[in-house]
């Protein structure tokens, strides 16, 4: 049961809202973090906990694109394809990934490591082309940078090329 495993986090989330249902999306995030997707069992458990019917949980889950109803690869690559990124080469970038990993948007590699999605605007329009991999943003992606990111992920599970606190353009005299 999720509740037993994450009791402190669950209690903390529930304490923030005067109406229980508000805790639904935060709790679904916990469920997704645990299993990589939101399972039916998790939805039923959360429904019971919040005094909702399972369909009430399901209708919320299915509205939001960030919840996966089935397992995705260990690294979920989401490339922004909206106009602002498309102007600076997001379609080309999707092509690179297709070639390098052999998957099209909506597909996963056979080893279960990577899933590719083409998504709508991620609020990084000045630093395109960009992608989000799991929780991290990668911006101003070039083909070389992409190679390094993919190899970093394969080797260490993370990459130093991910974005830090965002600022663009960076200040001229920055120490960063």
């Amino acid at each position, binding site marked *: 049961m999720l509740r037993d495993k994450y009791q402190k986090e669950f209690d903390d989330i529930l304490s*923030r809202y*005067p*109406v229980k*249902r*508000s*805790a*639904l*999306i*935060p709790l*679904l*995030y916990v469920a997704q973090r645990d299993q990589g997707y939101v399972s039916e069992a998790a939805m039923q458990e959360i429904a019971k906990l*919040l005094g909702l019917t399972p369909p009430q949980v399901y*209708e*919320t889950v299915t*509205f*939001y*694109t*960030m*919840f996966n109803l089935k397992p995705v690869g260990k690294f979920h690559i989401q490339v922004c*394809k*909206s*106009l*602002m990124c*498309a*102007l*600076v080469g997001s379609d080309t970038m999707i092509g690179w990934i297709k070639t390098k990993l052999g998957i099209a948007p909506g597909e996963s590699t056979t080893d279960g490591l990577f899933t590719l999605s083409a998504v*709508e*605007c*991620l*609020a*990084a*329009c*000045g*630093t*395109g082309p960009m992608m*989000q991999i799991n*929780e*991290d*943003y990668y911006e101003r992606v070039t083909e070389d940078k992409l190679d390094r990111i993919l190899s970093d992920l394969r080797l260490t599970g993370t990459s130093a090329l991910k*974005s*830090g*606190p*965002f*600022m*663009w*353009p960076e*200040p001229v*005299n*920055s*120490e960063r």
Partner: protein
Amino acid sequence: MPQHELILLKNMMQPGYTGSLHDYEKAGGYQAVRTTLGRIAPAEVTAVVRKSGLRGRGGAGFPTGVKWGFLPKDYQGPRYLCCNADESEPGTFKDRQLMERDPHQVLEGIVLACYAIGAESAYIYIRGEMVLGSKILEHAINEARAAGYIGKNILGTGVHVDVWVHRGAGAYICGEETALLESLEGKRGLPRIKPPFPATHGLYNKPTVVNNVETLANLPHIMNRGADWFAAIGSPPKSTGTRVFCVSGHVKRPGNYEVPMGVTVRELVFEHAGGMRSDKPLKAFIPGGASAPFLTPAHLDVKLDFEHVATAGSMLGSGGVTVMEEGTSMVWAALRLMEFFYHESCGKCSPCREGSSWLVQTLRRILAKRGRMQDLETLLDLCKNIAGRTVCAFGDAEVAPIQSTLKHWRQEYVDLIHEADAANLIRPETVVRH
């Protein structure tokens, strides 16, 4: 380039500034909370903000002080403040920078707004993808709580304000304030029919104010330096203060630039953002995010304030300025934006839900050189039947790319259709016509 005083980006432009509580206090942070809470009456704070002329930075540009004034005066019971950090308008990436680089500036604004409207709870509804931003905010909230700027009995004044971060889960529509409230209540993010407005029936049906991140970040400065100071910046009387414009597209130096409202597009694009990235001239730009109609090089000297952009036939919106160079297909650009709106339509109102699908299909056909001349009338007819016929402003927004590109670059549509005709003369079997 003319030098303007930075207000919102000033701290973060200092070398070594980390956005920590220590750095923020050293830069004069939380001074407004100290001098306002318990010393100036909440109604007086609202009056100052109204006098400053501050207008919402999220897109609609509604005067902030007036919005606060709609809350019922004699209501007993909880009121809420929601900070709209669901920055999702394509072309916009300013709130992300404000939250990740100077989170306490936003938090101080939240405390001031809560004090003014009498709210003891504030929720920051941040878009789900911004995981880093939500962590930075949570860390900043903990710092501020430990220092007594947030929580019970702030600085001994008897004022209580608690702040929580609430992550969305990937839905553009949740930036619409009533959809945001639905989402915060754990439901599908479907906009509510207004009236009643959130001021009387908001979160949990209680009086609620929803303000954008950048709007709130302005409040400490207004309280510190006065309404008259703020009201003199920019393009008074109706567009006061600065805007953080997000420049994207085919420019040399895309990014966030804070300038007084009323600078021209030309200055923003050619001086601040370094001009076009190559020798191709500017062909088109969007002045205020994906929902704002496209403009042309003839509009480069339009002043970027609410009134002038509206007069030019577009809107200042969220401040996302996207620049396109010569050679960009406007039919393609309209389709890209239309695909966004099709994907993000929440599905509540049929004109928007069905119409966006038809618009995408028709545009795709034209771009694939299978269009017909009557498609252009169909597009316009569909647009006319979507705009103004939906619960929220999404319907008006989604027709903007098509209506404006058809207005300024109709010939591009016509040329594609003529190419379709020519192709059909060679391959008459491809399409059954009429």
